[in-house]
């Protein structure tokens, strides 16, 4: 062929004429093949290299300049190929390991970028042809080819993966190449677009394989991979998975990060749903027990019992197994409780459950009534025997309900006191529940037998189905504790899910960036979009399964920990979310299914988002002026997606931590303190009473025992003498904010100071007269028609506090001496319209009932109103010391004054002490217990933890998740920028400057996050505090100052308002009382922690800055 002909053919080939190239191929094939064979001395490789050379020539034909020698150009390509081959062959002999080879290759910069336009080889026709070729390959050959060429594995690795030896693999590869070569030649014969396959581009990628490859090899890849997919059935999924597996086995860090995010998400959701179930379980339990409506603790109840109980009217009270006995001529009920759930409801004032049959735990109320003043460990004598007192059960154990039941139960109209005596499997205690099963028309014996036989079994709830749904709905909608707990958990879980998606997204994004290259390669060799999608889909599915399985295990593990913590540390009721009770499971999402669904949904979303964002790689606007140095550096390092994800994660951490801090410390301020007198440390620590400011280290507190008889007119006898001189003296030095419940005012005019005590029926008056002592009878006789008795609230406080009221004084003067001597009392009012003024005389006193049913002792004294004090603001902390919140007016005196005035039945609710108070000074039988400030703090902590336990744990897990997302980000981000960093270093940017820049970029994120979180908390606090004020107004107008227009129908109005209050408080998180707290400290702490972690992690990633810039550059190029 003449030179001029060749030139013409080249010209035609350049314009895309395939026939022309085919002619060139035929013309030169023999010569080039010979040339290469000579160079390589390897006929097999020579054939490959020849094909490769032509492929490259075809691809680059346009780079050939006019007039240039085609043959020279072709030979130079062939030469390069051969050199490459020989070098690699040489290296293959000398090199020990793949890693070192890679390093060497990178340093030699053998990688070449893909310079071809993407769509060059991607047309359906070519792909289809290539796919048809691949059909001729056996799966084994295909696998070997894919591993070897696509995945850049060495022969030995391929052999290992395929479970065969190296020779076998080499043979397979050889045969595959041979087959493909034949196919290609056949294709060429048909005039197909042989050259359309971007062989050189592929070879550029495949350079790093240990043996040189020719076009046939590259084609084999092109043919091998689509084959698997082209066969919809058969090995498709297996092969796709295999590609995935190979990819991930080389990117273990990313794999771990991706799996970790998903596992954490699954675990969090799983755990959160368990917590919600647990909360519902717990709430339901306490709801039914406290309400005492109809919970019956039974195993699978027998049909007979169900039939009998299904008449709802029979279920009237709280189920307790109570015995019947007499003590000191009075009837008592007692019983045994062996059910662990039931026992868990008991709160012990001191001591605990009996350990053997010789011990018994007794209710405080019972001990009080018995006049028993002993302590745990004493022997106590009951009519059924003598026991050691193992514990005193506190008053909160359903006393009221039991009382009402027992009252009904007696036949002689004498009340029967309930005594939840707890024995441990004592045969002496007859087990029956007379009161409960009264309505079943069973004989007591039958009932006993029935309940006993059922009761000993495994415990389960049984709730009449007719009411079940209604009541559950009621609990869910009205029971604010549960509702708000669930709401919080739900919100938090939602946040956690968002974070998890962000975290997964962050990892996916990085992975996609790393993987883009691989995918592009797959695409070039004929992978359709659909197949790539298939590959991702299969992978996603597999990951979701793995993540779900591990995540659920983790979730269960974490929830197990949470449950143990709740029960053992927080003393919460032992009702867990792992339950099969249908009334729980029917109403809450299934944790296992829920977490699996979320995980399965989130991962593809992460993939999809990452996929979409990788498409959206847009450059910034082209500014007229080039960016300055600082901006250039920023541009080079910026990765908005990851930055946004990191900041979001950090904001969550900050926000969550600030929240947790505020809940768990006393920086939260008071709430609802105007509604009732709430002992500060006892109820909500730090609310209203400032312990530290007042220098208080310990305090006594009690719950005022229920008084019986005529309302709270009569005081029950708690000790012989009430307050002694010494007690009174000492209490005046302490901060006493106790109050007398039931003093009376004798007057012919109420003055508005108290409500009138009206004796009701003739029966009541008869009962009072019958039981009163001569002193009482004389008092009752002397009540003339003019003077009436008014129940009057009287508060006792200490001198120091009384003196501090000086500034609220509106009339008269405060004289503590006269208060102490009983000459005067103070009138504390809320409105500027006192019913009495200074100097007016009143008659106050108290009546003491030794056995609660008659007046045994009476005191009555004249006293002068010394001064009038106005405490206008109801929420003022001061009001707690001297006002009963529901009263408009109170009388106030000091301890000694109370004693002098004969208010001997005085009981204190709290005595706050600046210094140690001797326990013997406390009025005997008042049931006061000493608590220290630190104990109170701990109790408050536990109280809050109990209340918000679920939420806090979610916050904690959330923070973990956020941190994980963040940490994932730091390393990945810097690793991803290795190329840019290397280029900057290569052009002379000092490392110190780069370090500074990277460090600043890293530290910027926690800064932004802290500011955003802080602003968020502040805004929320602002909104919430405004809402709180509004809530206060609503509350007052609901319960304290009912507007006139609703006074005709108060209860309907209050019901409606209660609903409004509930929804209002839920909407603004008012129950959390946290928004009034100061978020500075927690934000600062979290900020510092985040900064430290950021600095450490960033510094750690600086390790990759070795002096070998060239190596890093090569690695970076490869990653790109």
């Amino acid at each position, binding site marked *: 062929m003449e030179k001029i002909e060749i030139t013409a053919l080249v010209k035609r080939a350049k314009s895309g004429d395939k026939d022309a190239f085919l002619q060139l191929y035929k013309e030169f094939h023999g010569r080039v093949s010979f040339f290469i064979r000579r160079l390589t001395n390897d006929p097999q490789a020579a054939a490959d290299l020849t094909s490769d050379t032509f492929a490259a020539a075809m691809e680059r034909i346009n*780079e*050939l*300049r006019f007039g*240039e020698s085609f043959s020279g150009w072709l030979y*130079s390509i062939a030469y*390069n190929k051969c*050199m*490459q081959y*020989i*070098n*690699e062959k*040489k*290296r293959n002999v*000398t*090199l*020990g*390991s793949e890693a*070192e080879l890679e*390093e*060497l290759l990178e*340093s*030699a*910069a*053998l*990688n*070449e*970028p893909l*310079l071809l336009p993407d769509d060059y080889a991607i047309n359906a026709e070519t792909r289809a042809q290539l796919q048809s070729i691949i059909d001729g390959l056996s799966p084994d050959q295909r696998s070997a080819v894919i591993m070897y060429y696509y995945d850049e594995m060495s022969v030995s690795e391929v052999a290992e993966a395929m479970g065969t030896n190296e020779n076998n693999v080499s043979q397979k590869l050889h045969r595959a190449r041979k087959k493909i070569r034949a196919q290609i030649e056949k294709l060429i014969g048909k005039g197909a677009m042989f050259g359309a396959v971007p062989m050189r581009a592929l070879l550029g990628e495949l350079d790093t394989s240990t043996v040189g490859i020719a076009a046939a090899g590259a084609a084999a890849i092109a043919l091998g991979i689509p084959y698997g997919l082209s066969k919809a059935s058969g090995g498709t999924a297996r092969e796709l998975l295999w590609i995935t597996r190979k990819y991930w086995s080389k990117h273990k860090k990313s794999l771990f990060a991706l799996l970790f995010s998903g596992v954490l998400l699954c675990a969090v959701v799983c755990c959160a749903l368990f917590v919600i179930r647990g909360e519902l379980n717990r709430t339901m339990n306490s709801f039914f027990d406290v309400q005492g409506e109809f919970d019956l603790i039974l195993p699978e109840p027998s049909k007979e019992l169900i039939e009998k109980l299904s008449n709802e009217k029979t279920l009237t009270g709280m189920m307790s197994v109570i015995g019947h006995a007499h003590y000191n001529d009075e009837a008592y009920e007692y019983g045994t409780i062996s059910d662990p759930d039931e026992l868990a409801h008991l709160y012990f004032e001191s001591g605990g459950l009996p350990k053997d049959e010789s011990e018994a735990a007794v209710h405080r109320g019972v001990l009080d009534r018995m006049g028993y003043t002993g302590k745990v460990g004493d022997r106590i004598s009951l009519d059924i025997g003598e026991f050691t007192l193992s514990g005193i059960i506190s008053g909160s154990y359903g006393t009221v309900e039991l009382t009402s039941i027992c009252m009904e139960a007696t036949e002689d109209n004498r009340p029967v006191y309930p005594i939840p005596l707890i024995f441990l499997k004592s045969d002496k205690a007859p087990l029956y529940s007379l009161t409960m099963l009264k309505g079943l028309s069973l004989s007591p014996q039958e009932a006993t037998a029935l309940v006993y036989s059922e009761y000993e079994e495994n415990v389960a709830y049984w709730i009449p189905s007719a009411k079940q749904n209604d009541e559950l709905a009621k609990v869910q909608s009205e029971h604010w504790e549960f509702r708000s707990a669930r709401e919080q958990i739900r919100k938090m879980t939602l946040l956690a899910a968002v974070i998890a998606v962000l975290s997964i997204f962050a990892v996916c994004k990085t992975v996609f960036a790393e993987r883009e290259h691989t995918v592009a390669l797959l695409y070039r060799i004929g992978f359709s979009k659909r197949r790539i999608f298939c590959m991702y889909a299969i992978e996603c599915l597999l990951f979701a399964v793995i993540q779900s399985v591990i995540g659920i295990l983790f979730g269960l593990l974490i929830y197990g920990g949470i449950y143990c913590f709740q029960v053992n540390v927080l003393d919460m009721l032992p009702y867990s979310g792992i339950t099969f009770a249908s009334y729980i499971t029917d109403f809450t999402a299934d944790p296992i299914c829920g977490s699996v669904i979320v995980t399965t949904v989130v991962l593809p979303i992460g993939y999809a988002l990452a996929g979409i964002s990788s498409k959206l790689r847009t*450059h910034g606007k*082209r500014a007229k002026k*080039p*960016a*300055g*140095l600082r901006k*250039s550096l920023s*541009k*080079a390092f*910026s990765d908005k997606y990851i930055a946004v994800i990191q900041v979001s994660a950090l904001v969550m951490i900050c926000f969550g931590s600030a929240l947790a801090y505020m809940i768990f410390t006393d920086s939260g301020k008071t709430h609802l303190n105007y509604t009732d007198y709430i002992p500060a440390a006892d109820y909500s620590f730090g609310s209203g009473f400032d312990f530290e400011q007042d220098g208080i280290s310990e305090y006594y507190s009690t719950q005022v025992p229920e008084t019986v008889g005529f309302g709270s007119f009569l005081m029950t006898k708690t000790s012989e003498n009430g307050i002694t001189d010494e007690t009174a003296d000492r209490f005046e030095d302490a901060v006493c904010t106790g109050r007398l419940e039931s003093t009376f005012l004798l007057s012919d005019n109420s003055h508005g100071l108290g409500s009138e005590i009206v004796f009701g029926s003739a029966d009541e008056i008869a009962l009072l007269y019958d039981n009163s002592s001569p002193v009482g009878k004389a008092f009752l006789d002397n009540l003339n028609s003019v003077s009436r008795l008014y129940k009057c609230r009287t508060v006792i406080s200490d001198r120091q506090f009384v003196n501090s009221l000086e500034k609220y004084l509106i009339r008269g003067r405060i004289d503590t001496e006269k208060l102490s001597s009983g000459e005067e009392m103070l009138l504390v009012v809320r409105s500027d319209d006192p019913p009495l003024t200074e100097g007016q005389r009143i008659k106050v006193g108290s009546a003491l009932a030794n056995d609660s049913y008659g007046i045994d002792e009476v005191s009555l004294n004249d006293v002068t109103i010394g001064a009038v004090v106005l405490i206008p603001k109801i929420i003022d902390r001061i009001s707690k010391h001297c006002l009963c919140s529901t009263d408009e007016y109170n009388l106030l005196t000091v301890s000694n004054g109370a004693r002098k005035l004969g208010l001997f039945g005085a009981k204190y609710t709290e005595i706050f002490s600046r210094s140690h108070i001797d326990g013997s000074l406390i009025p005997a039988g008042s049931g006061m217990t000493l608590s220290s400030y630190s104990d109170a703090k701990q109790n408050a902590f536990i109280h809050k933890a109990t209340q918000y336990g679920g939420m806090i744990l979610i916050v904690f897990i959330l923070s973990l998740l956020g941190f994980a997302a963040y940490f994932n980000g730091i390393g990945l981000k810097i690793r991803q920028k290795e190329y*840019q960093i290397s*280029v*900057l*270093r*290569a*052009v*002379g*940017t*000092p*490392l*110190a400057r780069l370090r500074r820049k990277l460090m600043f970029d890293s530290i910027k994120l926690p800064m932004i996050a802290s500011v955003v979180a802080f602003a968020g908390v502040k805004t929320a606090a602002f909104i919430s505090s405004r809402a709180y004020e509004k809530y206060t107004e609503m509350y007052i107008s609901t319960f304290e100052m009912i507007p006139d227009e609703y006074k005709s129908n108060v209860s309907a109005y209050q019901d409606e308002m209660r609903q409004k209050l509930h929804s209002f408080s839920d909407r603004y998180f008012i129950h959390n009382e946290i928004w009034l707290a100061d978020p500075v400290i927690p934000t600062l702490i979290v900020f510092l922690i985040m900064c430290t972690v950021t600095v450490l992690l960033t510094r750690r990633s600086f390790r990759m800055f070795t*002096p*070998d*810039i*060239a*190596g890093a*550059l090569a690695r970076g*190029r490869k990653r*790109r």
Partner: protein
Amino acid sequence: MIKTENLTRTYGKGEGKVVALDGVSLTINDGEMVAIIGKSGSGKSTLLNLIGGLDKPTEGRIFYNDKEIGSMKDSELSELRLKNVGFVFQFFDLIPELTAEENVLLPSRLAKNKDAGADELYKALDIGDRVKHYPSELSGGQQQRAAIARALINSPDVILCDEPTGNLDRASGEEVMALLKRLNSEQGRTVIIVTHDRGIAEQCGRIIEISDGKIV
């Protein structure tokens, strides 16, 4: 003057140890135009990287005007790369997030050279109309010219080129070579070119051939 003494660079340890460069000693005088040729993997790129301060030798020393760069701190070495050496990479290595112009100006900004004569460079390299574009929007030749502009922006005394024409078509390659020759002959810059192309090497004043890490 660039002088190397007994330069050795090895990768790996033990049996898998690879000697990429084995005791290379050479001297390149100011204003010389030198081609380093050799087969792929012969160690020529490694030699260039070492000379350019992009890597540290395992053994041996490199002197720039009698100053040994092995003992330099990173800041000094960076300064050297920034001001005295211009590196042209085979794969251009432009930062993809920056426009061609920003890439070119980066070293001058780092060196705080205000008037860097960038426009003249663009003109000389014929990329004036493309500098506002991002590397992904440029052809291989344009990218290579931008990379050369970046290497020249701080008027370095030494220009190191790693296969500068390896990824270019012949025309572009020739233009690049012409430019390098001009820089050498007109401005007296030292130019060191690594290539496996004899045709290119023969255009240089001196050819150093490397094989198996040694000068032949």
